[in-house]
């Protein structure tokens, strides 16, 4: 963070450089955000205005779309499912990853490096390739089209990323505190719970946010493993919205806006955690 300041301080930039910098950044931001902002604004439009495509701003302004999203599309049911999947899936991944990361960061034993490499490999492969066998395994376990099954599966799906970041964090922290605790006679799990867990809190918070957003946004495996409407997540609802355009376009657009706003708000509030979590996950 320090170095860039010196580049900036290296010389006062001339006016044309400012024009260039802000022109470039503005153009990129415009290209990246315009379609999304336009759709979000459209959720305050009437169906007629959406279909006519006239006007960038809502006119007349209405919140009927949001009312429709909940009363007709029953968005809250999908939101509740997704909240369950994202919260419990994140928790499951965190518990499993923390328990595995600690011994694999601290102790040397046969098969340790192989295990770390194996877990890391899962993060480096396009997992959609495993679609059919995952479906098969989940069905054989009796977990197909079940909320519990989805929670367990999402715990597994987020496990490699969570594990890698937590282990890297633990490797970079000194073991003295734990050694002192064990010297005082504390057992393995006592040490883990009383000493390591508080120490790892910032890292846990970081991966938790990223895992939560990942599960919130997950479509592929939800589409593969859930059929009943009562179990579906918000991303499946979004896919369904496209076919709703015909008769309830305002509800569909407003619903999409609500679904998008959850991760956006999380990011705006927890920006630092999201960015450091993603950076750590990629560089490791």
């Amino acid at each position, binding site marked *: 963070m320090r170095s860039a300041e010196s580049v900036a301080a290296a010389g006062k*930039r001339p006016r044309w450089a400012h024009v260039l910098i802000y022109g470039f950044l503005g153009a*990129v931001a415009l290209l990246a955000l315009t379609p999304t902002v336009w759709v979000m604004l459209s959720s305050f439009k009437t169906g007629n205005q959406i279909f006519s*495509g006239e006007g960038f701003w809502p006119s007349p302004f209405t919140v009927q779309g949001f009312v429709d999203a909940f009363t007709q599309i029953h968005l809250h049911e999908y939101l509740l499912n997704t909240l369950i999947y994202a919260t419990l899936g994140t928790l499951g991944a965190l518990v499993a*990853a923390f328990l595995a990361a600690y*011994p694999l960061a601290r102790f040397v034993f046969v098969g340790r490096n192989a295990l770390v490499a194996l877990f890391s490999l899962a993060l*480096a492969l396009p997992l959609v390739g*495993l679609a059919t066998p995952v479906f098969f*395994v989940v069905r054989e376990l009796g977990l197909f089209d079940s909320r519990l099954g989805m929670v367990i599966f999402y715990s597994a799906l987020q496990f490699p990323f969570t594990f890698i970041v937590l282990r890297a964090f633990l490797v970079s922290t000194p073991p003295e505190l734990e050694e002192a605790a064990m010297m005082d006679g504390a057992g393995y799990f006592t040490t883990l719970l009383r000493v390591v867990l508080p120490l790892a809190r910032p890292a846990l918070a970081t991966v938790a946010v990223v895992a939560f957003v990942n599960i919130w946004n997950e479509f592929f495996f939800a589409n593969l493993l859930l059929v009943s409407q009562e179990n579906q997540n918000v991303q499946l609802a*979004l896919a369904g919205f496209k076919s709703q355009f015909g008769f309830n376009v305002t509800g569909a657009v407003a619903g999409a806006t609500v679904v*998008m706003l959850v991760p956006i708000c999380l990011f705006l509030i927890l920006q630092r955690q999201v960015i450091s979590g993603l950076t750590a996950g990629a560089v490791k």
Partner: protein
Amino acid sequence: MRGPVMVSLLPGITLFGIFFLVPFFVLVATAFARWGGLDFAWVGLDNYQRMFDDPVFFKAFGNTLFYAAASMFIQVPLGVAVGMVLALRPRGWRALRTIIFVPFVISGAAYAVIFSMFYNPRSGLLNNVLGALGLSGDRDWLFDTATARWAVAGTFVFIIGFVVVLVMAEIASIPNEIYEAASVDGATTWQQLTRITLPLLRNVIGTAILVRLLVDIGMFDLVFILTAGGPDDATATLALYAYRAYLNGEWGYANAVGSVILAVGLVLIVTVRRAFRIGERAL
């Protein structure tokens, strides 16, 4: 210590074993079988034979590589450029970083909804803007074979937030002294960016490409919802092609395609890691 360590590793190993390892071995084995639920027979290389005889497979393969190329040659360079400019800390850089990062947290399914509206030939913003500018404003971007792939690529090449934050983090770790010495020697900001910063970003650029390639090789959500692979498979991807086989109950064939997806991923990853010399720092 042995006992507790084993217990501690158990949940992770169980989750990983059941949902990654077992499916992986099922995939490798059944790629050589005709398999659809109850029906099962070993067929040797028949699935691969059929794949290589199917023009749709090659179309899907080509499209997948097209999307990967769009990421590699448009998205990543753009992200690197924006990251380097933001690292100069122009006034308001924090807000700009936030704005440019936000699109990254929106899901593929949401983008499918957004862009099915945006590209709509009659009511979409794109054609309305083009029409207002006096250009032809009646093209059906997503369902015209000439533009479909580009229209799909257009949905994600500007989502550069992830590359931007990676690049900014890497620049922040470059020691100050290098720039001070360069300044003393009279190097301009432009020279510092191109001669010092950019070469030092090699590793992180490789990482960004890797992460992106992984997403592109498995690309499904956007295409599945937006176009279902159409028109005439012009936007179909390998993941979508495999999914169709799965829906048809041709699980063995779907898994043969799945094995190609994993293999392509592995080959590209090894290649990029070599090319950008990633992983030379320890695991």
